[in-house]
């Protein structure tokens, strides 16, 4: 049960930005996985090189670094491609290329760091932070990562909600995601806002990555890649448009992964390592039963059967 809540916090932090970035920028971003990993590795390098034990400091630095990384991606790759009128599939392929490149850049960084400081950065242990308490409540010990995850998830949800509903910039961002052309006509500076979206999304995901270092026993340069199935499935449950449905998706997936697999393991003897299959089954079910409305394609076939029945 604790695990379920713990994963729920992570999934909320990871997947809300995915939905937000897709609906504003219309880019399926595989670099999302790198945002998680780079966030985690900012914390790892800070801890391993400078002996930093403040999770707040790590989170702020990770937010800035990964946020600017996301903006750079947008300026150097996605915007030129979109201006040229490439199809969404092409942009997706370019993001996949970036994903591979970033992964290996991180591997190289760990190699270089290993060369100067003889520490193993390719598989780094759990970091214990000094500024988060672990609380014991009624015989149940709530770990550091749980407390930090709870606080961060609450802040992220509140911040996104207040930002989108109450501020002018947030409303402008929603206008862009609803109708890009009309938003441009009514005088909203589209390019700046899209860059801002990237910055925020990259930053939030990086905070999630920092939290991951206080939870996972071994942090590797592929930490984010192993999460990508769950995070994207959650995004797809939300149709990549609705933030509320994305939140519900996070709850569903974390329940499936933690409670569902425990039941299957107890009654049918399914090994726990087959956990991703449940997520994949959810993904397929979602695609068949509720074809996502947000993304392109699919529309012509969705009502085909109903029309034939008439």
């Amino acid at each position, binding site marked *: 049960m604790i695990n379920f809540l713990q994963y729920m916090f992570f999934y909320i932090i990871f997947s809300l930005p995915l939905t937000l970035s897709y609906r504003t920028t219309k880019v*399926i971003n595989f670099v999302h996985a790198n945002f998680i990993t780079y966030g985690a590795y900012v914390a790892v390098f800070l801890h391993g090189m400078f002996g930093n034990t403040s999770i707040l400091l790590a989170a702020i630095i990770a937010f800035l670094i990964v946020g600017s990384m996301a903006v750079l991606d947008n300026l150097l*790759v996605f915007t*030129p*491609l979109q201006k*040229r009128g*490439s*199809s*969404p*599939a*092409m942009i*997706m*392929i*370019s993001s*996949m*290329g*970036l*994903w*591979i*490149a*970033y*992964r*290996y*850049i991180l*591997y*190289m960084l760990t*190699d*270089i760091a290993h*060369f100067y400081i003889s520490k193993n950065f390719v598989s780094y242990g759990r970091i214990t932070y000094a500024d988060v308490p672990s609380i014991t409540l009624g015989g149940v010990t709530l770990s550091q990562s749980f407390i930090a995850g709870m606080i961060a998830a609450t802040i992220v949800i509140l911040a996104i909600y207040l930002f989108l509903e109450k501020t002018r910039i947030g409303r402008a961002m929603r206008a862009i995601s609803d109708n890009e052309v009309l938003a441009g006509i009514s005088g909203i500076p589209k390019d700046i806002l899209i860059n801002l979206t990237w910055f925020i999304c990259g930053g939030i995901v990086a905070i999630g990555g920092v939290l991951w270092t206080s939870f996972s026993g071994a942090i590797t340069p592929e930490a984010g890649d192993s999460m*990508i*199935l769950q995070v*994207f*499935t959650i995004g*797809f449950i939300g149709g*990549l448009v609705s933030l509320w449905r994305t939140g519900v998706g996070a709850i569903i997936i974390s329940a499936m992964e933690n409670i569902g697999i425990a039941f299957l393991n107890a009654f049918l003897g399914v*090994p726990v*390592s*087959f956990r*991703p*299959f449940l997520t*994949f089954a959810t*993904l*397929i079910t979602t*695609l*068949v039963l509720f*074809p*996502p409305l947000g*993304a*392109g*394609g*699919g529309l*012509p*076939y*969705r009502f085909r059967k109903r029309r034939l029945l008439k």
Partner: protein
Amino acid sequence: MIGFDVVGFLISWLTLFGIYSILAITLNVESGISGITNFGKVVFYGIGAYVSATLTTYLILMLNGIDVNKTPPYNINGVILLGELGNKNPFLNIGLFILAVVLSFVVAGLIGYLLTYPILRVGPEFVGFTLLSSGELLRIFLTHYEPVGASRGLMAIPNPFGWVPDSRIRETLYLILVLSFLALTYFVMKKLVNSPFGRVLKATRDDETAALCMGKHVPRTKATVLSIGSGFSGVAGVLLSYYFTSVNPNMFVPAVTFNAWAMIILGGLGNIVGSLLGAAIITFVDRALTFIIPLLGTTIISPDYLRGLLVGLLIVVVLLVNPKGLLPEKPIETPASKEVEKELSEKGR
């Protein structure tokens, strides 16, 4: 450069080139021509390799009267027995190879068709992601499934020419086999692209709604092309498993898919000859690096990472600088178009 084995290098390069070209050509037909963003090429490749490996090792042991329940092919006794028994009967080896090719084609094609059902009714983003994650799932499944050797994989798969005593002749024979399969794939795909069906594919890629309005069943079209492509990638997997004579789950990581993507993007989306060129360039660099890296000694940065980085950057840079690739897409060739061209060139004179 003492002892540089030029012939050995050429044979290994051309064999890998043949295997990867089959992947690249089919991927190009699926992605470049019909617009299916297939990020799960490795699924069908892996299925082909595993079907052939499992079939061959189990059947050889069973036909030699060994109880596979007691000595399964993945434990050490099984591997030793396979090494002893594997290469005795030429007809058995070749027969098993043919059986494996047919079975892998059918199985991979079928799975390709089944996977298309849920995903082809939604947009390209979802297709790409679902196939990508199914690749990851296949690897997890293989790593934990005991009858196919779990994380150790299967070893000592008898090569169809394993009975040839001289290793150089054996490799050359296998190379000829691989290249003939490549020629077959090339021929089939070229026919497919230039057929009326190929034109439906291009219409689907360019505008799905318009193709639908013209009365083309778009999901069925895509499912057909994906199952044909998957079948051929299954065959590529078979060729790979017999070439390395061993399979294990770590051979089928998403990097295989990305390599194939880099090939077709470099060579030119929608141009089959282009993907041959791309495959030749990338496999050549890859092979050359395998020969060069041991000469470098230890370096700060592992050269493997550099190779991975290059693949990623290549995709991004080619898309940014020259999205058409080295050989841009050409209009299709039909008997009628050839006639028209002939007329035009005669008039020009």
